[in-house]
């Protein structure tokens, strides 16, 4: 997938899941400060992105993502890891 295609996928996920206006979602959009998402929404985003990448996201990497552009880079990286056959990170479950 190209970065533009990944962006389109992310825009679809965000607009459909959180009823956001697609026109207001840009690469520079800040997920929490501008799009109004919270940490619970972030769980939903990364679960849906798992279906795109075919890999379980690394929770520590996921927690550091703040913008749509960083999400695009994350998906690119995950797709490359999938293609390279790299093992998935373990998930963290609440204790």
């Amino acid at each position, binding site marked *: 997938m190209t970065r533009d295609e990944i962006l389109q996928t992310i825009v679809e996920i965000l607009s459909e*899941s959180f009823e956001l206006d697609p026109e207001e979602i840009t690469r520079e959009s800040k997920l929490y400060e501008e799009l109004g998402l919270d940490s*619970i929404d972030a769980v939903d985003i*990364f679960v849906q992105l798992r279906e795109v990448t075919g890999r379980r996201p690394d*929770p520590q990497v996921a927690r550091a993502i703040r913008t749509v552009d960083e999400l695009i880079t994350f998906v690119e990286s995950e797709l490359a890891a999938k293609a390279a056959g790299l093992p998935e990170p373990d*998930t*963290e*479950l*609440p*204790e």
Partner: protein
Amino acid sequence: MTAEDLGWVLDGMPHRPPMRLIDEVLEADGKQLVARARIGDGHVLLREGGVSPVAAIELLAQAAAALMVWRAGRGAPPAPGYLLGTRKLEMHAERFAPGDELLIRVAEVWGTGPLAQFEGELLRDGCVVARGSINVAAG
């Protein structure tokens, strides 16, 4: 593990009857759990002869809690947890009736920090009566 070997999981949950809705843990491994819930004549959620299918959300949540107890290990102190909600839940039954036995399957999807998502389904007589995902928080 047999259901008898897994009795300690229910004891490790913070829920107590009548609000502990699952009656038995049947199977468990690191990522998924199967539990059974019976709808008795005195069920705490019984209204006008039936239990709303919306109770599926709580049943999934309690099964998820049981899975976290299993992962914590026998003897670990009960830890509080919270059901945050569901974005997607299919319900295929109008109600659950006294005498119904429900099989509840849950599996971890993903988690980060205190938050996690589980997916699961409820079966009655081998048919799926509810299916969806829930978000939970611990602590």
